[in-house]
C-alpha cells in the first residue's frame, strides 16, 4: 500500500509541477500547484507527519494558494507574452534545472542504502500521537522561535497592508 500511495501521488505531484511549467495562463499554473500541494499532503501523511499533512492542506493550499488565485484574478493577469530574452532563458533554464536534478539525485542515490526504507505511519510511539510529539517540542524547547514567528506574521501583515494599499 505504501508503494501504491507513493506512486499514485508522486506521479500526480510531478504532473502538476510540469503543468505549472508548461501552462501559459497563470491561473492554470496556480491550480496545478494546488494539485501538487494536495498530493504532497498525502505523502506527508504516509510518512507519519499527520499534523503537517493537515497544515499543508489548511495553510498552504487553503490559504496561500487561495491568496495567489485572488491576486491573479485581481490583477487580471493575462497570458504570457513573448519578450526578448525568453530564448536565452530557455537555454539557461532547462539545462540548469537538469543539472541541479542530476546533482541532487547523484547524492541521494549514492546514499540510498544508508537511508533504508519507509514504514507507513512511521516509527513514532503509538502512545503519543504525532501532534503531541510536535507540540511537546514546540511549546517547550522552541517556545521562543514560535513566539517570534507570530511576530513575524504580524510584521508581514503590516507590510502587506502598507505595500498594497492605494496611494492617497
Amino acid at each position: 500500500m505504501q508503494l501504491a500511495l507513493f506512486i499514485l501521488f508522486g506521479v500526480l505531484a510531478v504532473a502538476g509541477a510540469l503543468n505549472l511549467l508548461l501552462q501559459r495562463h497563470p491561473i492554470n499554473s496556480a491550480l496545478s500547484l494546488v494539485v501538487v500541494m494536495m498530493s504532497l499532503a498525502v505523502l506527508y501523511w504516509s510518512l507519519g507527519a499527520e499534523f503537517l499533512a493537515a497544515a499543508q492542506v489548511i495553510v498552504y493550499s487553503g490559504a496561500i494558494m487561495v491568496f495567489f488565485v485572488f491576486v491573479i484574478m485581481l490583477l487580471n493577469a493575462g497570458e504570457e507574452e513573448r519578450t526578448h530574452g525568453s530564448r536565452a532563458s530557455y537555454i539557461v533554464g532547462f539545462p540548469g534545472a537538469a543539472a541541479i536534478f542530476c546533482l541532487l539525485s547523484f547524492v541521494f542515490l549514492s546514499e540510498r542504502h544508508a537511508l533504508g526504507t519507509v514504514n507507513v505511519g512511521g516509527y513514532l510511539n503509538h502512545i503519543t500521537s504525532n501532534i503531541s510529539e510536535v507540540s511537546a517540542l514546540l511549546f517547550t524547547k522552541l517556545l521562543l522561535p514560535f513566539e517570534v514567528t507570530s511576530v513575524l506574521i504580524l510584521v508581514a501583515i503590516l507590510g502587506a497592508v502598507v505595500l498594497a494599499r492605494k496611494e492617497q
Partner: protein
Amino acid sequence: MSVQVPVAAYLILAAVLFSIGVAAFLIKRNLITVFMSIELMLNAVNLTFVAFAHRWHQVSGQIFVFFVMVVAAAEAAVGLAIIIAIFRTRETLNVDSVDLMKS
C-alpha cells in the same frame, strides 16, 4: 508484505519537484508564476525534511517544516503585496519590464 519504498525514492521525488521549480523560475515570464515556482521549491524541500524526519525518528524535521510553512506564508503575503504595487505603477506583470535597477 509489499515492496518497501526506499526513503531515497521520496528524496528523488523531491529533487524532481525542486528542479521543475527551478526551471519554472528561470523560464516563466509572469511575475506571479515565478512566485509560485518559489513555493513549489519550498514544498519540495519540505518533503525532503519530512522524509528525513521519518528516517531518523526525530520530530525536529517536522518542526522545521512547520517553520518553513510559516515563513512561506509571510513571504507570500509580502511578495504579492509588492507585486500588486508594481502592477499599479507598471501596468504589466512581465518580469523583464521590472528592470529599473539596471546599472
